[in-house]
């Protein structure tokens, strides 16, 4: 990638020398034309965990860049360097001596998934992770043949003499700057009216190779710029005002935010292919449990399944569309994401696309779940390295995984989030011992059915299943309905023992699951019990030793000083042998690989 920046660079103040060995991966390089004097090369490095672009090659090493010795992805040993602190407090590492220990052509692709390193942490690289990294740029048409091609000429910035600076360098103390950035998100115009008068504003998020920032325009700037700006396009923006950011409402990573003023200019940029499409700091779905509720996060995952659209009426009597989907990533965890409005309506989850959401809101609904708010950006199959990685992983192994959902859906599995356990797992993992009930799914065989007391007399009212008291006068009393009835309905509570290769479990099956297991409905069974005991027994004989997929709920219950695990069958399904086989084969291979 050949991009030249004109950058005024003031090196001064403290220079302290640290010497340490560090294996880092050379990621990316830029040539900076300093006007008079030799070229300077700015370099982005990664240690497999983080990237940092504040490296400069000392001029005596310029030849390494010019001769393509330093090429993206090569693994280097940084032997000597000097750290300078700039006027605004940022640090720059000047590379004095660096060895390439593995050339780029011998490195097969990305190492780890490095994210931009945030300032404030110690710059000492103590982790020596030799992994493979790809260039952490989010660009199309990567041209990594730096040095072989003449650096492209900086397009003439409007106003001639302005220098294009990176977004990351913007601060309140410099006003004459121009940036070149892509608009990733443009809000609608909001108006307000209060005691001080009326006003309107719009906001947008813009991104370039160095970072992102939130921009707001008020009143006259709305008129000037709103219609000019299109999300997804690149613009030269200059002379906005910078101030400290209000981080509460946005996940944009920048200490500052920008406000457009009377001197600001926004001009479309034609040559925009180098500017990244989006800047995201993705959180692994597995990590969402550790985040606070109401946090604003960026996530990316494969849409495993999507539910049908539903419509709700809000408190203000507005109808709004809603759709939920399950998102899974390489942590093996699944989370439910809710989309609203037009995004919900337009969403197409067929072919299990990679979905990325910037600025999703994390909630503790059902444990942990995500919602795409009006300020979130939803991307389907984005053209970024993380998406390709996910696609490759999913096609290879992810598609056969059920994943563990962070969002508990009551009443049966919602969209493929199954928590498969063996019965011995349930005991060794002490499921049900926590504050809340635990749910799990297992394949098990019925080994015993208690036919005594499996039926009870229930209130004949539609929605009441309470046991009725036989008044012995032909009437049956329901305490809940506070009524007497001349009849009752039979209902099942079936106690059963189910077993797999490892363990067994006593479970209680209520009406639906009991009927599914016995293959007869409660009313018929109630009749049969009184009229034909042999036939009644035979129903149970026939039902024994059948294998099903059980979805069970376990909870520790205390009853008169005694604590016992109670397991209830929520759902019974026949075994899907194909799916079961696939899962078993996958688990076997995984077990084998870990030995």
């Amino acid at each position, binding site marked *: 990638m050949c991009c030249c920046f004109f950058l005024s660079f003031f090196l001064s103040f403290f220079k302290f020398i640290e010497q340490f060995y560090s294996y880092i991966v050379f990621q990316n390089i830029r040539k900076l034309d300093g006007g008079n004097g030799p070229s300077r090369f700015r370099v982005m490095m990664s240690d497999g965990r983080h990237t940092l672009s504040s490296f400069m090659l000392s001029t005596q090493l310029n030849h390494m860049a010019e001769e393509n010795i330093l090429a993206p992805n090569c693994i280097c040993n940084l032997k000597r360097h000097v750290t300078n602190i700039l006027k605004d407090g940022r640090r720059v590492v000047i590379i004095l001596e660096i060895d390439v220990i593995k050339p780029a052509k011998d490195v097969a692709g990305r190492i780890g998934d490095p994210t931009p390193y945030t300032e404030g942490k110690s710059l000492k690289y103590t982790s020596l992770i030799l992994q493979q990294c790809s260039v952490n740029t989010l660009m199309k048409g990567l041209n990594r043949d730096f040095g072989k091609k003449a650096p492209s000429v900086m397009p003439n910035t409007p106003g001639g003499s302005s220098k294009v600076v990176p977004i990351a360098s913007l601060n309140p103390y410099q006003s004459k700057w121009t940036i070149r950035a892509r608009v990733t998100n443009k809000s609608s115009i909001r108006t307000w009216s209060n005691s001080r008068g009326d006003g309107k504003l719009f906001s947008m998020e813009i991104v370039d190779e160095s970072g992102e920032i939130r921009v707001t325009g008020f009143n006259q700037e709305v008129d000037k710029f709103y219609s000019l700006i299109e999300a997804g396009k690149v613009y030269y923006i200059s002379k906005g005002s910078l101030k400290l950011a209000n981080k509460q409402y946005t996940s944009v990573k920048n200490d500052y935010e920008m406000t457009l003023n009377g001197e600001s200019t926004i001009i479309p940029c034609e040559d925009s292919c180098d500017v990244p499409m989006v800047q995201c700091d993705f959180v692994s779905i597995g990590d969402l449990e550790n985040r606070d509720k109401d946090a604003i996060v960026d996530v990316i995952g494969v849409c495993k399944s999507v539910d049908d659209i539903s419509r709700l009426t809000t408190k203000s009597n507005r109808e709004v569309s809603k759709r939920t989907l399950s998102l899974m990533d390489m942590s093996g965890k699944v989370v439910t994401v809710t989309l609203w409005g037009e995004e919900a309506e337009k969403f197409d989850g067929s072919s299990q696309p990679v979905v990325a959401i910037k600025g999703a809101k994390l909630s503790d609904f059902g444990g942990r779940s995500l919602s795409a708010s009006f300020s979130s950006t939803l991307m389907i199959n984005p053209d970024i390295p993380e998406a390709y990685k996910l696609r490759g992983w999913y096609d290879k192994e992810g598609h056969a995984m059920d994943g563990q959902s962070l969002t508990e859906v009551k009443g049966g599995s919602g969209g493929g989030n199954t928590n498969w356990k063996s019965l011995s797992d349930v005991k060794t993992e002490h499921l049900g011992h926590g504050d809340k009930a635990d749910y799990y799914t297992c394949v098990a065989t019925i080994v015993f059915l208690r036919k005594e007391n499996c039926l009870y007399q229930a209130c004949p009212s539609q929605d009441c299943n309470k046991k009725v008291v036989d008044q012995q006068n032909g009437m049956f009393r329901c305490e809940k309905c506070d009524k007497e009835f001349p009849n009752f309905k039979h209902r099942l509570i079936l106690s059963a023992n189910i077993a797999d290769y490892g363990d067994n479990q006593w479970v209680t099956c209520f009406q639906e699951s009991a009927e599914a297991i016995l293959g007869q409905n409660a009313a018929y069974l109630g009749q049969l019990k009184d009229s034909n005991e042999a036939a009644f027994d035979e129903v149970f004989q026939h039902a024994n030793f059948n294998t099903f997929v059980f979805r069970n709920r376990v909870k520790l219950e205390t009853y008169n000083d005694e604590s016992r695990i109670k397991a209830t069958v929520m759902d019974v399904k026949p075994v899907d*042998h*194909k799916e079961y*086989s*696939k899962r078993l*084969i996958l688990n*076997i*291979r995984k077990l*084998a690989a870990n030995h």
Partner: protein
Amino acid sequence: MASLLDASKPRINCSMLSQHIGRGVCFVGRVEKVHPTGKTFSVSDGEGKSATVELNEPLEEELSGIVEVIGMVSSKGVITTTTYNILREDKGIPFDLELYNEALKVIHDFPQHYPFEVAASG
């Protein structure tokens, strides 16, 4: 060949034929071409490879779809059939030959966990 039916007949695919020459096997595959004489036909396994099956008597019925052949592997890698089963496609869940092949690989990769030989002779 009653003795063949008593002995263990490991399930194999085409790539395992050469290791089972002279032994009884069980081969599941998709019928490809039936010879006009009806005495021989070709089958393909879950990996797409083909093998030849020979019968003692010509076929009396139409053969298509997935078939399970029990027989012996000749020195030329041809399966001489003792008996065969057609896994009908119109009944039950369709047979997934590729998945079967994956299971086959597991059985052969971990013989210590799938001791069919012991089970058969015991």
